[in-house]
């Protein structure tokens, strides 16, 4: 028996426009599935295998909705057979109507089921139960395949109770699942339900659950690496521009500052696209304008106020870091400095933070003596900027990581200062400052330090992504 025949398969079926593709999109973590509020968007069954190194662990099928369920059921009922032979009648229906355009959708949706797929029947509980669904459920019963019902909530109204009563006559397992609010926990819960459909599938689906857990870990790890890279690139970036004799120095300085800022914006944008790709949200690019933090620019005061530290927080951080550095000097002299090192360190750190709160980086003029003048800006000296940049990209990553792949509407990135409290506590701030200070001083992070920085970001990301 080939591998294709032994792995668990699940066909997501139902009435047209009840969110089948959304559910497949969410469970397959694939935002390429065509989802539309126009019925009949799916006309062919489409397979979504979960593959690990080429081995299929399980396979999902997105299928068209029932179109002529009553006619199909009438055809089946014409064949008076015992319950154990009913699946053969369904198979015969497929064989007879394979080339009949009137039953194209039914053949498409029944075919994977008759090839051994478990049934996931999707209904929309925000709309009332209707008797027209009974023909569909009866057809599915004729297939003899293990089945479960998924109650989706597309809209605001709730008819779940009526639906549960109706579905319980046809399905042993009934679960509620909103693909738009899908996360790793609901994903796990649905997979666990799918594992119960058939005993032979349990081990493989359970293995898939474990795999998904490590998959999520891997995505978080890659996100942390991308974020760390963004921070290193941004904080160490140096922009240069030749300054000719006839050029106005002030104008050129302003231009260089714009180039510098634009480069940092570009780094952020590139990192966002990488995060999209890591979490399989490549199609978000289409609605790119909607995901620019509600037009909050990286260098705006609003951004600083939402994501950055306050002047007081920054002072405390700088004073603590400065004092720790100074204390090292005190320790070196066995305390004979009367703790002056710590005091001076704290003072220098605090004053530095106060003065550079609003300043990005000074613009230097190089090469005055040799006659070829160059303007240079960077690396980033503003002690607040790393927190703004990190806050923004963490917020973006958390939003994307928690975004359902079934979501097709533009996402709104609106937030308040409460977000900062979710990821940035005093301990984290002090730990981060060690790295940021090094970058401000123009020093390169060693491989070990970079790994520590990544680990710190990963830890914070886990708090946000869950």
């Amino acid at each position, binding site marked *: 028996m080939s591998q294709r025949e032994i792995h668990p398969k699940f066909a997501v079926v139902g*009435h*047209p*426009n009840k969110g089948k593709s959304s559910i497949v999109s969410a*469970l*397959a*973590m*694939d935002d*390429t*599935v*065509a989802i*539309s*509020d*126009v*019925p*009949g*968007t*799916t*006309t*062919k069954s*489409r*397979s*979504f*295998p*979960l*593959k*690990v*190194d*080429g081995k299929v662990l399980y396979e999902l099928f997105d299928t068209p*909705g*029932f*179109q*002529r*369920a*009553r*006619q199909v059921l*009438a055809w089946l009922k014409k064949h008076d057979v015992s319950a154990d032979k009913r699946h053969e009648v369904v198979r015969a229906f497929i064989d007879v109507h394979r080339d009949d355009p*009137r039953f194209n*959708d039914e053949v498409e949706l029944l075919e994977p089921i008759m090839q051994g797929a478990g049934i996931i029947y999707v209904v929309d509980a925000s*709309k*009332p139960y*209707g*008797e*027209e669904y*009974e*023909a569909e459920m009866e057809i599915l019963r004729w297939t003899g395949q293990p089945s479960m019902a998924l109650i989706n909530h597309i809209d605001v*109204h709730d008819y779940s109770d009526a639906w549960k009563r109706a579905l319980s006559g046809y399905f042993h397992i009934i679960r509620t699942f909103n693909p738009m609010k899908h996360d790793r926990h609901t994903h796990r819960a649905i997979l666990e339900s799918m594992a119960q459909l058939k005993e032979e599938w349990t081990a493989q689906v359970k293995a898939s659950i474990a*795999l998904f857990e*490590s*998959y999520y870990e*891997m995505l978080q790890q*890659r996100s942390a690496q991308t974020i760390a*890279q963004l921070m290193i690139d941004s904080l160490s970036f140096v922009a240069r521009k030749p300054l000719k004799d006839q050029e106005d120095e002030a104008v050129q300085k302003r231009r260089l500052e714009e180039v510098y800022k634009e480069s940092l914006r570009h780094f952020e944008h590139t990192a966002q696209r990488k995060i999209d790709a890591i979490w*399989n949200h490549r199609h978000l690019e289409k609605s790119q304008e909607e995901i620019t933090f509600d037009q909050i620019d990286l260098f705006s005061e609003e951004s600083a106020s939402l994501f950055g530290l306050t002047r007081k927080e920054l002072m405390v951080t700088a004073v603590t870091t400065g004092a720790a550095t100074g204390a090292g000097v005190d320790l070196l002299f066995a305390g004979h400095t009367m703790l002056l090192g710590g005091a001076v360190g704290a003072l220098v750190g605090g004053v530095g933070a106060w003065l550079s709160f609003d300043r990005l980086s000074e613009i230097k003029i190089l090469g005055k003596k040799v006659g070829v003048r160059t303007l240079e800006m960077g690396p980033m000296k503003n002690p607040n900027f790393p927190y703004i940049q990190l806050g923004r990209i963490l917020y973006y990553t958390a939003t994307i990581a928690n975004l359902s792949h079934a979501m097709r509407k533009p996402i709104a990135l609106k937030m308040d200062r409460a977000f900062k409290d979710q990821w940035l506590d005093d301990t984290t701030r002090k730990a981060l400052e060690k790295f940021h200070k090094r970058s401000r001083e123009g020093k*390169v992070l*060693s*491989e070990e330090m970079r790994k520590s920085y990544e680990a710190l970001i990963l830890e914070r990301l886990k708090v946000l992504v869950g």
Partner: protein
Amino acid sequence: MDLKSYIDLEVLLRTQPREREVRRSFGLAHASLSPEDQLQAWREKHLHTLQTPRLSDRIDHFLYGVSIILLIVALILGILTGVGLLRYNGSEPVNLIYFLAIAVLIPLVSMVLSVIAMLRANRAKNLLVHLSMAYWMERIVALWSKESADALHEVRINPLVANWIVIKRSQSIALAFSIGLFLALLGVVATQDVAFAWSTTLDLGAEDFYRFLHTLAWPWRTWFPEAVPSLSLVEQSRYFRLGGGVSDTLIAHASLLGAWWKFLAMATLFYAVLLRLLLWIVSVKGLTRALHTAMMSLDRAKQLLSDMNEPYITTHEQNEDEKKDRTEPYQPSGVHMPVTAYDMVQGWSLDEDRLRFLCDHFDIEAPVCFHVGGNNTLEADEKVIEESSGSVVLFVKAWEPPTMDAIDHIMALITKVERLVIWPIGLEEEGYVANPRSVAVWVRKLTPLINEKVWIVE
């Protein structure tokens, strides 16, 4: 691991497309190898894709050329320095302190600086490295070789590797110089009678100088005592220029003065050649290690290793959905207001009680109401169609999209009636007023059927 492999890998990582599935297959096939060996195996597999002459060959050729020139120059300089220092005109002996300074003191000082440079090699701005002639040489050569300059600019060599290349080259140059010095000593001693002596302004007695030399000779004094000057030789070899020439004592012991050469040869061999050779070996090892570190810290190499060694998980189709998104902007069409009196009311999947309620609600008069669709048998629906005539209202649930089952019924009705009004209704909670988006779905589906006979209510 050598520089060529590092450059090849860096270029390949930049130019090869990232195909995760292919990389993972490669990783699985080479799972038993260490990460570095995996990278090397990957490099070897893709080497044929690089254009020839490869960038690594061009750079290696250029660096080799620069190194060879420097080595030859250093060797010649060493020989010339040695010959110059040992130049004996027959009137004044050769002051061996000069030679010791070049063969022992300067090598020791430069070796200490080399060790410091090695310890600080991981800093991009390493002053000791930048001071070295070996650092500037290729920049100078690149000035008149545009091709070489282009090749150097094409690759971004890690600063750590660049530092170790300079350090290794410095050691090679110093070693070549020392060998030249040693060869000069042997050559001069073999071809001339050189009278060695020592002379210094410092208040240094023969005994002190003897102790100093004895200390210098510690590596070989036990197994090669002939190469250690005796106290008497030291005493007899001292001379002062004051007085206008060589003293009688020196002349009396002229045959003994040549015995110094063994000591000088051993000092040169040990301090200038052997110790330098040791440092050269360390620099070779350091460069190999730096190349390893640099290779493993390449972002693309890390990515490649992670692609090779992490399970390749896909949850989606490789080819994107080819179906077109059929969402189209809603444009109201075929909207007609109904009259209030009809010959028949039908409800698609709506029971007769609900139909009567809807008629009251919308102030519609009709003598008969029929439930169609839903749980009805096909025969029951056909019977209703047979009985249909005149003006008919068909209530449909706006929230349920039109299935082909409903369309079949509508098409059958059209053949029987004079006027058909399709009325999508909303939810009870919404006062049976249909959501415009839902109505739009019905309008779009029924548009081919809408004419003066078929109306749809918005």
